[in-house]
């Protein structure tokens, strides 16, 4: 008779206990909040204000709006992407491998599904917080005060989940911190530069633009940019579905890889 505990190919299902993992991460965050807020929020904010006001002065209106207003949507998405990615790679890897926090958790009634979901949701929460912080900067500096901004937090919840799930796949494959350089350099940086954060994607060759539309930063920008400009997105459900499907696939793949890594 052979037996595998809940085959690694299953869809991960968390129990109520995963809240205890979220609370653990929150307690750590509360102790170090000041420094993490600096890193998560200040970087994209500086980019937005420096490029927006500095470079923006030299540029004509883009798609009919000042450059900083165009850039605002991209900055919000970029902040969300980086917030999720740092937490779900470097920080999660510390807990998984370096501090062996996950090992301790798995010796309790917590399952790997609980721990994985909690980590993804935690990274999504931090992503949300980073995105909303830049949204507040946009409001504060009167870059946009359209009522449609109220929709943005909902988009950020979903986008944060997607970015977090993708990053945790990389963590499941990582042997050391160096590995994350590949993700940041080969995936995130091109995605940020080619998905319409800094300039409209119609400036790109059509083939490349089409490829970038498949990556998850594009639908987030496609949703948020019109909302910053006071419009509703043309095909909202399409982009929401693209983010949701990417998130679901990523969560499942992360679960498979984490089970292979830890419960072998």
């Amino acid at each position: 008779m052979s037996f595998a505990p809940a085959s690694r190919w299953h869809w991960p299902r968390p129990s109520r206990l995963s809240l205890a993992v979220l609370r653990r991460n929150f307690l750590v965050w509360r102790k170090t909040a000041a420094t993490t807020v600096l890193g998560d929020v200040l970087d994209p904010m500086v980019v937005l204000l420096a490029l927006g006001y500095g470079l923006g002065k030299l540029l004509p209106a883009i798609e009919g709006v000042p450059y900083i207003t165009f850039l605002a949507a991209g900055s919000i998405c970029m902040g969300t992407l980086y917030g999720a990615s740092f937490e779900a790679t470097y920080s999660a890897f510390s807990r998984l491998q370096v501090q062996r926090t996950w090992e301790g958790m798995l010796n309790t009634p917590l399952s790997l599904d609980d721990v994985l979901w909690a980590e993804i949701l935690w990274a999504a929460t931090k992503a949300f917080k980073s995105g909303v912080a830049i949204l507040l900067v946009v409001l504060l500096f009167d870059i946009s005060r359209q009522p449609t901004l109220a929709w943005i937090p909902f988009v950020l919840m979903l986008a944060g989940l997607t970015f977090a799930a993708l990053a945790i796949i990389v963590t499941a494959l990582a042997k050391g911190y160096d590995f994350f350089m590949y993700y940041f350099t080969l995936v995130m940086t091109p995605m940020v530069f080619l998905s319409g954060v800094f300039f409209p994607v119609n400036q790109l060759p059509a083939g490349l633009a089409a490829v970038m539309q498949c990556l998850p930063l594009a639908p987030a920008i496609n949703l948020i940019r019109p909302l910053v400009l006071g419009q509703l997105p043309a095909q909202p459900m399409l982009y929401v579905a693209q983010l949701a499907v990417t998130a679901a696939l990523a969560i499942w793949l992360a679960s498979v890889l984490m089970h292979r890594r830890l419960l072998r």
Partner: protein
Amino acid sequence: MSVAAQSVASAPAVWVQGLFKRFGEKAIVEGLSFRIQPGECYGLLGPNGAGKTTTLRALLGLTPFDAGQLEVLGFPVPRQSRQARARIGVVPQLDNLDPDFTVEENLLVFGRYFGLSDRQVRARIPALLDFAALSGKRAARINELSGGMKRRLTLARALVNGPDLIVLDEPTTGLDPQARHLVWERLRELLARGKTILLTTHFMDEAERLCGRLGVIDHGSMVAEGAPRELIAQHLEPYVVEVYGDGAMQWLDAHRGELPARVEISGETVFCYAAAPEPVVRALQGHHDLRYLQRPANLEDLFLRLTGRGMREEA
């Protein structure tokens, strides 16, 4: 007490039947079987790579296995391993305390993983800290603790759920002698309270002091099992004379025929296992280049006898 409760009370705390586990082509555990009664301290002994840690992981439901049946505290594993883990306390080989938290926060946060309320855990913390002799370190950060203190905190943390079974993977590896004795004393106290203990170790004095019964495993299967003294009596002559020094090998060549002892050589030392040590000691008279030690056979001899003296590549 109901009939069902009685049968649970007399059921083994741990029951392993025909466990097989391989990684790829390599067999790690090959048909291992043993059982541990409630209140017993059972030691799994074996060289590095013998399958000890893999067996513990299987018991906790943390590794799929190829064949066999496991039951822990009456719960079939892995099917009900979550329920089993709720009644188990685990002390891992390497400390995995949360470095961002204080001593007290480590216990509180870990208790939540068992679904305990903060009130429940806080009520237990003073007794746990007292047990670990860490009451004065309640608010200390983990990096302020010594290795021995960390181990004791890890042990206290393993008790936060009031477990029936405590599983320790090499609990005193890397500790200094004082810290080790303190951990042993705590473990004996847990036994006195009726807890069941399963530990792995390759310290023979640890096994001899703590364990009522031992299972010696090598290459994934059981090579001997029983009480430490019984095992020694069963497999070894009662006395050992260790002979070492520059002329040890020449001495052996000269006396091999007349020694009423079974001789084993390990490195530069000649081990003479004998029913009576006197004839061996007589044969040593006048050899001033030799030193010798006469002693009763111990677990270390048994361990080497059963698992071999050779250096292992994978070790």
